[in-house]
């Protein structure tokens, strides 16, 4: 069970689109996981394994740098799937 947060400025709109795409990617790879959305403020104090976000948010999320996964845009489904697959391989979750 892996816990992933998608983070955008307010945690309302674009992170929700990212959440849909991350969930789809997880289902496809057969990985059990929980995906939630957060804003730069509300991520504080949360427990998670990974954050999926865009590069401009890097400064605001510096303190989690080992857990950050960057995609160029929240709506790019294929890119999100590829990036996550690579990351999971690194983590040894999939072969």
């Amino acid at each position: 069970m892996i816990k992933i947060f998608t983070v955008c400025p307010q945690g309302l709109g674009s992170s929700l689109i990212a959440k849909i795409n991350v969930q789809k990617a997880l289902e496809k790879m057969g990985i059990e996981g929980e995906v939630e959305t957060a804003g730069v403020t509300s991520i504080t104090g949360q427990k998670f394994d990974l954050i999926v976000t865009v590069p401009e948010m890097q400064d605001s999320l510096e303190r989690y740098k080992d857990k950050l996964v960057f995609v160029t845009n929240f709506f790019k489904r294929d890119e999100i799937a590829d990036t996550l697959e690579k990351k999971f391989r690194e983590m040894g979750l999939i072969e």
Partner: protein
Amino acid sequence: MQVILDIFNFIGEQILSQYSIILGLVALVGLLLQKKPATTIISGVIKTVVGVIIIGAGAGVLVGGIDPLTKIINHVLGVQGVLPTNEAALPFALEKFGQIGSLVMVGGFILNVILARITRYKFIYLTGHIMLYVSLFVVIVLNATMGLEGWALWAVGTVVMGLYFTLMPALNYPGTKDVTGGERFSVGHTGDFSYWFSYEVGKLFKKGARSAEEFKLPKSLSFFRDTTSSLALTLLPIFLILTFFSWNYIVTEVSGGQNPIMFAIMSSLTFAAGMAIVLAGVRMMLGEIIPAFAGISEKLVPGAVPAFDCPVVFPYAPTALLFGFISMFIGMVIATILQVIFKVPYVILPGIVPAFFAGGTSGIFGNAKGGWKGAIVGPFIMGIVMQVGTSLLIPFTGELYDKGATFGDPFYATVGLAFAKVSDLIGKGGILGWIVLAAVILLTVFVFIMGKNYRHLDEPAAETAK
């Protein structure tokens, strides 16, 4: 027989009068249609209902920040000060219109799917919080101006929202394509009118335009994307300036003896806390509903163009974003000062949240054709327009008018204001009312007939054909 009637009454008067339950049912249907496992369904429904309750709880905290501010403004300036911030207006709007507003949001989405299927405007609006805010706004205005209630209010609201969800993304699709270099999505956000305006104004600077992206701006400015801190930091100076003009009044009437400076600091932070609570509630409430909407529309309208929240265009021009943000904010401040000088009945305070999201995105659209000049001029003008338009809009917002907070984004101050005026004229009836109603219907039909010429959707296909 009596038992069955009792059950119906219970469903109608008890369950369905709780808008949190209605939204929970929407999530339930969405999750069932997606064939999610039972545990996901149960937790999804509970989270949705709890999210709505959290928003209501945020209202109490927000009031702790807004109430003293509006009291002090009223005392010092003799006018009503209003904060144009959607999340601050939301709990008050939900309190009275949550039930019908959430049903209108669902109805509007269904109509959006139908229109996307049968007309040339193939857009599906997927920005959940904006869907809810505009639905509530439309319901409030229709109720205040035309006196509509119950099913009539739902039906008219649904038609208006279906049109909004379908047409506003169409308006901004050409601009979005220019910004993104041809990506197949549009922007669905209440800065919409301002994006279109800034894009069109940007075209005026066409020749030799230097892109805003060639400038270097301090990175620290992007700190403003954190709405909780930026709200507290912009409210504080307003509070402090007013404090020095009403020191004694604050001590005796507002703060209950607390030092006014400390009181100003705490009130600003209390407001930010209220915002954080509301945002957490909205996030929880929509976390299941919007994925369900997305899944349903994907199945029913294959090949539709989705409309996403404005931050999806931020990566394409991050510097133009800051240009637009700053110039819209300056426009707002100038307009607010003028409103104070001319003593208009409702002074709209500069709204940092709309300035960042709507102003910043407008900067990106202006930059696409007009370079850095385009990134500044459109958002600056819209900053002024927003303050003037929002001030004129207040009398039409019924229940919201005295809450000290209202819906704040360029859409409400422009198209929203026009909608309020039109529905007010129709509501007054008489020959003029009928003429206006006929004109609106004709215009709508005309827009859909013109849809035959809406070529932006065909471009990729045409290019491959070449």
